């Protein structure tokens, strides 16, 4: 088995079989990263550039760790300290980096579609690590992988994504991944933070948090992205918390035990209270651990498609 694509640009562009292959490969890497020596030599002749045109802590560290655990050579780039501020175009920046014999590019960019654009113009495997409000495929893969690990399967499970769906690439990628794997998806949050044509994706909107939670097996709490909000989408943070924040009393009052997820970084006390984030029902830290295994799997499978004699 191999992936049907040469780049991971979004969940939209891959098949269910691709996702299952990534999961099976991640199972093996999860075993690897729990060994006394957590490193395999597979990618020792591959060089990967991490291009982050937007801030990131967790995703960047997770990718870098995954690359190093596969023995790839890694170069890092952050736009704040680069020539991008001198006016260089994206294609020029990347081609300059590729001329130093780089095989794969992991890129985060504030513009939606930056990865797709780049894949058409440069000769390297592209992994999208988040492009604006478009997609964040590895996050969706690790989220669904964590659900599979916790509940045994994704198919048939009911998942509600709560919060700022409008600005969230995590939400869009998750909706695609969950639907490809056969889960049922609802979204919940302030009406102002819902995309206009959300029903076109086959997702229903539930305005009441309690009803959404009563329905679901898994609740994925998104972060309130203050930095992306150019206008006021809800009156106050306090009001958001009262209507859409998950607290322990609400969680305990539900008729069944649900799984709580959060892609991080958490605004403790806004979308989720500390006691919920740290509770037994939360799999937030498992998500982070699975992120490394999933990214190892994605990079390994894409690298296996870069043939040695094409170097």
């Amino acid at each position, binding site marked *: 088995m191999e992936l049907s694509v040469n780049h991971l640009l979004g969940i939209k562009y891959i098949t269910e079989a691709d996702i299952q292959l990534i999961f099976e*490969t991640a199972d*093996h890497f999860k075993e*690897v990263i729990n*060994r006394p020596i957590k490193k*395999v*030599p597979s990618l020792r*002749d591959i060089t990967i550039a991490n291009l982050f045109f937007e801030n990131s802590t967790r995703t960047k560290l997770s990718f870098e760790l995954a690359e190093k655990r596969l023995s790839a050579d890694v170069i890092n780039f952050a736009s704040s300290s680069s020539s991008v501020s001198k006016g260089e175009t994206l294609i020029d920046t990347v081609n300059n980096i590729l001329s130093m014999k780089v095989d794969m590019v992991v890129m985060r960019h504030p513009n939606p579609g930056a990865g797709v654009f780049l894949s058409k113009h440069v000769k390297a495997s592209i992994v999208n690590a988040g492009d604006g409000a478009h997609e964040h495929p590895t996050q969706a893969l690790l989220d669904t992988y964590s659900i599979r690990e916790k509940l045994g399967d994704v198919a048939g499970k009911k998942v509600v994504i709560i919060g700022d769906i409008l600005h969230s690439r995590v939400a869009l990628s998750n909706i695609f991944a969950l639907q490809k794997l056969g889960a049922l998806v609802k979204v919940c949050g302030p009406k102002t933070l819902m995309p206009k044509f959300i029903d076109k994706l086959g997702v229903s909107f539930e305005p009441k948090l309690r009803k959404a939670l009563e329905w679901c097996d898994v609740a994925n709490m998104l972060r309130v992205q203050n930095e992306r909000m150019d206008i006021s989408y809800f009156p106050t943070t306090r009001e958001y918390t009262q209507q859409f924040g998950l607290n322990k009393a609400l969680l305990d009052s539900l008729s069944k035990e649900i799984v709580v997820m959060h892609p991080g970084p958490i605004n403790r006390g806004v979308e989720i209270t500390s006691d919920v984030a740290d509770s037994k029902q939360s799999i937030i830290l498992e998500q982070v651990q699975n992120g490394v295994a999933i990214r190892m799997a994605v990079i*390994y499978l894409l690298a*296996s498609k870069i*043939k040695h004699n094409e170097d």
Partner: protein
Amino acid sequence: MSQKVLLNATEINIALNRLACQLIENHDDFSNTVLIGLQPRGVFLAERLKTLLEEEYDIENIKLGYLDITFYRDDFRRSNKPLEANKTSIIFIVEDKRVVFIDDVLFTGRSIRSALTAIQSFGRPLEIELLTLIDRRFSRHLPIQPDYRGRQVDAIDGEKVRVSWKENDGEDAVYLVKN
């Protein structure tokens, strides 16, 4: 395609018993020894030997693990077929243990080279030995030889040695397959 029987079920059984006895000669009660079946095809032989040692020779608590070498192979991105990984399961400590690698056929020696690297991730063994059911002579790419062998076979490059096991393939037999 034609094939010739190299070993039948009785001959395999005799070879397994001899290999088990040779292991006992060197490893006594196996208290400091671990058996490692190499994925995918070495695990059947390893399981057979473990059962034989326990049931026929009354040796208890034999430690058996499975090692997958996919991520350590030297032909990543060089072969046309994608490499498929199998499960690794080593639930004991390898540090300072006497390790016996078990595989069905020793051919070029490249997978054993990979296994030697892979096992290092679990610690530093005291020593490593190699047991194979079939040793294909004159086909080595690396200076690797088995410590225990069931049968030595001369096969030319176009030929393939196929080991089938009752539990997986329906019968115990070793074939030389010509294309």
